[in-house]
């Protein structure tokens, strides 16, 4: 494990940069546990102050210190991303391994549903969910719904790996020594698909956080929970750009873009590492 990380940082500059960016944002989000004020309270500091030594990120028109506000927002956004990733991983691993190992009609039925989920337009569906639930839509419900929509691509990927594993020698040995299919799938095959699970989990976080930001910016989530998206929503709502409170928009946008690029670099470098051909080329060329 440590050898892998060492190799990655040595031969893969993308991985190092990605780790750095995601690490900084995570530390920033963790800082919210030491926040001196409650993040949902408004008018605790003078409004519309530009960034200075007292207020590092300035204050917004609702009288909140943007540093602590954003720290809490990033904590929520990251938690949301991880939650969606976990839920959708559970579904995609189960479906992928079942379809790949059992094959036959199980495979056909699961892949049929998979194909349906792939071609559903997700964004209009999420808007519909908001349309029904309105302000009852909390973070966890949204994460659950997005987790149930975000698995099909990765399930297909896991299935294709598992199809190859089924014909390997060790699987036959396990079957003949009386291992149950469930045990074979989750004890023998799962470790082989783990690297894919990891890299797709990060890609899934990019997708879900992007969706959440978009929904929130349009006003289609619960606006009382501070997230990066709702921060931007309130900034737009107070016409921050026109009033000249540019830091209210610029700082969250820069930070969220840094997070996206960091996560993306992590998936790209992990994918390259998983594929032995590109890994060898890079190590040989470095």
């Amino acid at each position: 494990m440590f050898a892998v990380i060492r190799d990655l940082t040595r031969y893969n500059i993308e991985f190092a940069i990605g780790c750095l960016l995601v690490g900084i944002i995570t530390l920033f989000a963790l800082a919210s546990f030491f926040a001196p004020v409650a993040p949902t309270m408004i008018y605790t500091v003078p409004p519309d102050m530009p960034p200075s030594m007292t207020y590092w990120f300035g204050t917004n028109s609702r009288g909140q210190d943007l540093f602590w506000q954003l720290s809490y927002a990033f904590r929520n956004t990251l938690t949301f991303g991880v939650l969606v990733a976990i839920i959708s991983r559970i579904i995609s691993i189960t479906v992928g391994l079942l379809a790949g190992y059992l094959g036959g009609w199980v495979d056909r039925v699961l892949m049929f549903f998979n194909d349906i989920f792939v071609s559903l337009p997700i964004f209009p569906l999420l808007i519909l969910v908001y349309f029904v639930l309105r302000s009852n839509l909390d973070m966890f419900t949204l994460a659950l719904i997005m987790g149930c929509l975000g698995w099909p691509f990765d399930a297909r990927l896991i299935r294709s790996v598992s199809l190859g594993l089924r014909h390997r020698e060790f699987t036959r040995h396990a079957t003949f020594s009386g291992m149950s299919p469930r045990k074979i799938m989750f004890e023998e095959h799962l470790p082989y698909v783990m690297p894919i699970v990891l890299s797709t989990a990060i890609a899934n976080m990019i997708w879900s956080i992007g969706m959440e930001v978009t929904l929130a910016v349009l006003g289609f989530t619960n606006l009382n929970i501070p997230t990066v998206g709702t921060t931007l929503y309130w900034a737009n709502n107070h016409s921050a750009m026109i009033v000249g409170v540019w830091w209210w928009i610029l700082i969250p946008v820069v930070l969220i873009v840094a997070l996206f690029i960091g996560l993306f670099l992590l998936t790209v470098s992990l994918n390259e590492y998983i594929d032995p051909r590109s890994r060898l080329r890079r190590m040989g060329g470095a």
Partner: protein
Amino acid sequence: MRDYLTFVLKRLLQLAAVVFAGISAAFFITHLSPISPVDMIVNRVAAQASVSPLAIMELRESLSALFGTDLPLHIKYFNFWTRFLVGDLGPSLLAFPTPAMNLVMRALPWTVGLLMTSILISWTIGNILGGLGGYYQNNRFLKAFGVVAMGVQPIPYYIVAFLLVLLFGYFWPVMPISGGFSINVRPGFTFEFIASVIHHSILPAASLVIVGLGISFLGMRAMVSNIVTEDYVTYAELAGVKTERVVFFYVIRNAMVPQLTGLAMALGGIFSGTIITEQVFAYPGLGALLVSAVNAGDTTLVLAVSSIAVVAVASAIFVIDLLHPLLDPRVKVK
């Protein structure tokens, strides 16, 4: 040929299943909504003028009969499908007596036009540049382009669109930032109107192209950098086949087919991107219509837009899938 026909038939069945599942989901989700369209209209009428209570009661009854809101859910569902099959989705609430279908049909050409243009541009340019980037791995320009694409690709459509508005509408105001055409131009088949439409579509299309370009560039580059190590490419190079021929007909031609499937699979996501872009630029397409329908609590219009979206995206994927075996003879149509 017979194999191909059975393949088409199978895919057609799947298309029907996807459309059925998608629209059913949209139907049940909207009908779970606590907002009753009848109450909405009655409230609006009652707020506008003082009408006798008896008249309001009659209005409520006739509206309930019109929308069929008193019926049990499964009968409503059945009625919805029988009406959907003849293209009638009921009146919209936003613009009351206008059928929701008319509003959707008015918005559809804008979205389809924007989507088609930006997909064609980003897919073609992205794939050609990506192919070259995978073949000439040491070219400095293509390497720099790869770094930029990697930086832009994970950023959501919304942020890209928003940055474009800030740049070209606020700091350097050269582009119109809202609407589909200028107010002082009369819609019609005139040069003035077409020029205005193109001028207004540059920024929305650019925001879609910027993100889409990165996706197809990176996918194609990864694909090509694996193909160039294959023996047949080395053989062709050694046999003295012209480099352009190797690049375009030996390498890019083979890498193109998976990219086409990738496009089909990404189409749903790109469509979502269009919705957001339209909202940012107040473009008169389906996305802006959907958002205003949700904000107004217009159940029928929301249902109409999502149904058409499901049908449109599913059929586009269907068409691309049908092309797949024709382009790649190695794909077995079973």
